[in-house]
């Protein structure tokens, strides 16, 4: 087990270097960002040169990348064009996005799995059909529409929530945004669980468990659910990263200054330190979440062992 974890951690190093390199190149390929800083005005050559020097933009791209990577290992992620260190942006944005991700994940896990188990056990009944139709509807409507509609009705018409989340982004403010963010994944989790449960409900070991005279609840939770969760856990693991990085639409609608917003801002201003810095951390999160998922398999299914 320990060996396996170490091997996986070591594998992360080339992935990490490759990902940062590709992202760095992509931002670089967008062109020279300095002239945009001058607005609609022709840039003054001397000032532009001084700015390029400040952000290392006057050097060849490989040198820029090496300089950047060198600094990363000493904890310096560079500065955004407004003079703010990227680490400061990250310190603020990641906890916010993390909270939002957690809220969304809680919705997904609780609502998604409960709905999935219920519909899976009652296949073909009216509840099953209506949940299926609902999930289809949710998947079909863009988040943008759901988000702004929810914001308008809950925030303006009924006045239940503030339409915009404050800079602190407390958990109670994140409930509605989290729900909106989770909706699409929630629909998938429901459908995944439903299929998995429906399939396993006919398995031999379930019949055995029922024949043994185990209570229904125990059969469902201990035997059926545990065995049905493997595909769901895989999906959720990958979703953690997506929820953090892909919240850009939800974050914009609800004024949440999280990772998605900072990335958007960074791309718009072509500030490679911001973009690469955030993506680096996201890549790490993806990798760790995947490792966690793989380890969870062993917990859920005793047949899987890591050496």
């Amino acid at each position: 087990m320990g060996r396996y974890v170490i091997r996986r951690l070591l594998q992360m190093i080339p992935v990490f270097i490759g990902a940062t390199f590709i992202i760095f190149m992509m931002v670089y390929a967008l062109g020279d960002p300095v002239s945009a800083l001058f607005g609609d005005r022709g840039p003054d050559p001397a000032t532009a040169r001084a700015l390029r020097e400040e952000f290392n933009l006057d050097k060849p791209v490989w040198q820029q990348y090496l300089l950047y990577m060198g600094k990363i290992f000493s904890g310096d992620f560079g500065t955004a064009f407004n003079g703010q260190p990227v680490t400061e942006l990250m310190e603020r944005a990641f906890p916010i996005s993390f909270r939002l991700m957690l809220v969304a994940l809680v919705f997904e896990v609780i609502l998604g799995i409960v709905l999935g188990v219920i519909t899976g056990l009652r296949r073909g009944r009216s509840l099953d059909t209506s949940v299926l139709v609902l999930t289809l509807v949710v998947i079909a409507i863009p988040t943008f529409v759901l988000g702004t509609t929810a914001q308008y009705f809950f925030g303006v018409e009924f006045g239940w929530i503030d339409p915009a989340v404050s800079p602190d982004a407390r958990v109670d403010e994140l409930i509605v945004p989290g729900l909106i963010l989770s909706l699409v994944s929630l629909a998938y989790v429901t459908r995944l669980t439903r299929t998995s449960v429906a399939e396993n409900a006919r398995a031999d070991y379930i019949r055995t468990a029922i024949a043994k005279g185990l209570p229904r609840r125990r059969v469902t939770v201990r035997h059926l659910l545990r065995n049905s969760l493997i595909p769901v856990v895989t999906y959720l693991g990958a979703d953690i990263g997506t929820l953090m990085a892909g919240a850009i639409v939800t974050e914009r609608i609800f004024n949440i200054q999280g990772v998605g917003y900072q990335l958007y801002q960074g791309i718009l201003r072509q500030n490679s330190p911001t973009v690469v810095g955030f993506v680096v951390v996201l890549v790490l999160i993806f990798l760790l979440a995947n490792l966690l998922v793989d380890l969870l398999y062993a917990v859920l299914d005793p047949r899987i062992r890591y050496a």
Partner: protein
Amino acid sequence: MRGSTRLIGAVAGAMALALTATACGGGDDEGGGGGDGVIRASWGDPQHPLEPANTNEVQGGKVLDMIFRGLKRYDPETGEAEDAMAESIETDDQQTFTVTIKDGWTFSDGTQVTANSYVDAWNYGAHVDNAQIGSYFFQFIDGYEDVHPADENAEATADTMRGLEVVDDHTFTVRLTEPFSLWPETLGYAAYAPLPRSFFEDHDTWLDKPVGNGPYKIDSYSRSQSMTLSKYDEYAGDDEARNNGVELRVYTDNNTAYTDLQAGNLDLIDDVPASQLQNAEQDLGDRYINQPAGIIQTVSFPLYDDDWKGEDGKRLRQGLSMAIDREQITSRIFHDTRTPASDFTSPVLGEAGGYDEGLCGDVCEYDPERARELIDEAGGLPGGSITITSNVDTGSHRQWMDAVCNSINNALDDTKACTVNPVPTFADFRNQITNREMSGMFRTGWQMDYPLIQNFLQPLYYTDASSNDSGYSNEEFDRLIDEANSEDSEEDAIGTFQEAERILAEDLPAIPLWYQNGTAGYSERLEDVRLNPFSVPVFTDITVS
């Protein structure tokens, strides 16, 4: 089925619980923010650090306007430059100015504002090593080229500009490189603000919480999130704040700010999102502001390209200008937040300041038949079709460019005459312009630095001027600009500037499209809200009930 109803009940219960929880949170928040007499206003993340000479966009400018007062201030109504900290600015030759500042002004850290506060600030702003975006504001001062060489690779040869000299605590002299009669009128811009010693001594701390001499002082600043400002009680100017303070909140999207305004969580937004323009009047009634700002949008031509040179090129440009139906585009696409342009300046200048409605004449009027004639006379469009280029990442550039092309295509009765060439990012677009890679029409816009006719002409059309993107050069135009700058009286100067402007209307290096308005919306709590010519709300005048 019994199980299912129970479940639905549980889900509904959980949702209700969640919503009540958030509702409570919302209630708490209102108590915390926006106390008595404090304006809650929307804000965007400033693009640059909040230094006076390093700010060239509205979001940073908004704060600078609150925390600084320079020698002059532009009257929010007329745009005229009035003395703020200046006691007097005197000159005999329009080239050497003696500036006397008023006594008794202090920065909000308690230190005096002296002549040194100005001279040091200006020297800082001009020096190339400080890489200030707005250093060109100091280019008229003698010695600028030594601290800020024009050549890309040259190093500065001096630390300060020799044209600035401190006489005593309240007097300093400024010598310009050449006569510039309207120079004192430019001094209302934020780049000319004085700076306290703390700015130079502990720059980082200052940036975390800027200190100025204006009607407001900063209480707290959390970068890219929010800023709270309160009234500065020791403020010595006569435009002191009529409210207790301002809370600026950064919004990631101005649609959200608009929704927040509707929900009553925000008092003032100063940029109504394009998608809400058609509803704004209905939603807000007379709490919706739509008034001219000092911004003109134009389409320029690459005069360095052979296709656009000579008499034929001129006819072509005139024809294209007459093929654009400005009225229709401004009302349909912009919901009257733009006004068709008929000269090269802006209505915020006022008649007295040099704005001359209709100066451009027939050439800026929609006349499809004459347009067709002119283009035929010029031998048709170069290569049979033209493009219009702009970045499309912000604003509604794509929409209006499509509309302009449609208008041209209709006028010429050729569906392929004009096509849009979209550039993905603003930076890329600017690079192409700077490198002179344009071959067809391209978008150019100008936001004035100060409400003077000079600012709408010289930086844009003078030979080799900093923002002369089309590469226009006309000796007569240059001569008239020089003459206007050295004119003794303001009135004569403006007359000469207009004479120069008429040459532009004849040569048409750029087609004036429309004047841009500033928009704003505010809550019922506020009164006396208006925008200044830079489309920044005049915060000091706002009263809160």
